[in-house]
């Protein structure tokens, strides 16, 4: 260093910067959440949650968007979970590191980095057009299933690898086959971590906008079947806010989204902490 600063002074300056940065991030987070909640909470009441939107969302509640969000999330989870867990078991239990696992890992990690708008484009051209599903819950859910697949693979594989090796050895020594060992020993021990990944993925589905707006559409009425178009809460919020249709209802929807995401984070953290304290 050319510039001579006393080691103690630079220590203070660096510490100050680091604390400052960390605290300002906290302040920004709190500012975002508090602002949305202060504006949105007064809007949320029983009828807001249970009546359908009228007049493009200017009046009425958001019931149909809640139902649409749930449908799409359920479809995505049902499709992605078996594939994700299956992949994780294959990577962790059935094979050594070789060219196939390397390609699988590369694909999964690349999928995790692909922007949601690309998923939206893909879902539109593949599910909506090519498969002829039209703008529908099914097309939206399947698109999201592609999007959350890498999250489920990664969290499940970590959970499976965290199961102590001795469990498997005991099961094998009792004459258990590989399949029996996986189903009766490894899976139950890893289930908490796997559930974690699933809950995180639910959060991603609920928060997603770009990938669903081009695949599920933005029809406001209550969806009757998987082939109906629907509007999720995040899309509803985007349309209300960006077109200035109803700021009150926009804030209400955003507040509900924030509350759900917050609860999901609390649940995941509680599960992780329980997991850590149990394994100690």
């Amino acid at each position: 260093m050319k510039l001579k600063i006393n080691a103690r002074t630079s220590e203070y300056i660096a510490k100050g910067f680091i604390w400052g940065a960390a605290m300002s991030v906290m302040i920004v987070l709190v500012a975002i959440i508090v602002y949305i909640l202060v504006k949105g909470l007064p809007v949320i009441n029983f009828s807001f949650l249970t009546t359908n939107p009228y007049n493009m969302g200017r009046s009425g509640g958001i019931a149909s968007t809640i139902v649409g969000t749930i449908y799409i999330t359920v479809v995505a989870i049902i499709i992605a979970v078996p594939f994700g867990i299956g992949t994780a078991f294959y990577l962790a239990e059935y094979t050594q590191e070789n060219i196939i696992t390397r390609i699988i890992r590369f694909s999964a990690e690349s999928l995790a980095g692909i922007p949601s708008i690309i998923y939206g484009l893909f879902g539109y051209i593949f599910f909506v057009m090519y498969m002829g599903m039209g703008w529908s819950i099914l097309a939206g859910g399947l698109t999201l299933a592609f999007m959350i697949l890498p999250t489920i693979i990664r969290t499940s594989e970590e959970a499976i690898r965290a199961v102590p090796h001795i469990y498997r050895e005991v099961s094998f020594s009792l004459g258990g086959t590989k399949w029996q060992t996986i189903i009766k020993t490894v899976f139950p021990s890893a289930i908490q971590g796997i559930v974690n990944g699933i809950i995180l993925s639910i959060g991603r589905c609920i928060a997603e906008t770009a990938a669903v707006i081009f695949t599920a559409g933005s029809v406001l009425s209550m969806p009757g079947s998987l082939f109906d178009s629907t509007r999720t809460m995040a899309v509803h919020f985007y349309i209300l806010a960006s077109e200035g249709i109803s700021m009150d209802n926009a804030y209400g929807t955003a507040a509900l989204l924030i509350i759900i995401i917050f609860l999901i984070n609390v649940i995941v953290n509680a599960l992780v902490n329980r997991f850590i304290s149990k394994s100690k």
Partner: protein
Amino acid sequence: MKKFKENLSGRIFLLFALSSISALALITVFIVVRGIPIISDVGIMDFVFGMNWAPTEGEYGIFPMIVGTVAVSLGAGLIGVPIGLCCSIFLSEFAPPFITTVFRPAIQLLAGIPSVVYGFWGLIFIVPLIRDYLGGPGLSILAASIILAIMILPTVVSISEVSLLALPRQYKEGALALGLTHWQTIRCVMLPAAKSGIVAAVILGIGRAIGETMAVIMIVGNAVAMPESILDPVRTLTTNIGIEMGYATGIHQEALFATGIILFVVIMILNATAQYITRKKSG
């Protein structure tokens, strides 16, 4: 029967495991097939370096959007990376335990907040601030950079924190034993040793910034023009798709998929680089 079940289960797991490969292949094929015709019609150079985007007049040049994307994500990196690094050093070195238990979930929560909410918050807070104090329309490169800087924090913080925590304890203990201060230890020993993880964190963070759509649509102004300052509105590759996909048909829609191809290629290169860096270190 048992033997059969054993073999079958292995096969089924392999089949599941091929899903991520097929997903990536499907995405690549369908986006490329839909977007390639227009690129070959217009010519790759004219498409990428064309200055005019006027789908109604058959002009498809995305260079201003590439500049917009670069400007916005560089800005996000310049603001977000130092702050993110500070946060990860804070978490791994300085934070007292009771703060860590709040701070780490808080960073996770940042990752969970819907991008539309960030965009909206930026529109309400950041855009008016810029308009009133710095001039210009407020909807600008700067506004998008600030919001994206917040959005990439979870990526930057979590990956660089992991690589800092993964360092052998002897590095730190050795440095401290030689009489270095805590900060000197971090700057001269720990950060260089964790360099590859941090570089990967930065690359993935920038990748997130490049790929973000909804938040950026709401605050970047979306004007198709070459920006002259960071207070000018721009359009990015993602917002070009996001805005026009709603009504585009025919060749216009193909041009949006072609925009997607460019975006996809850039992201895949960044991903592969980040994976290569982390793997080289661990392997």
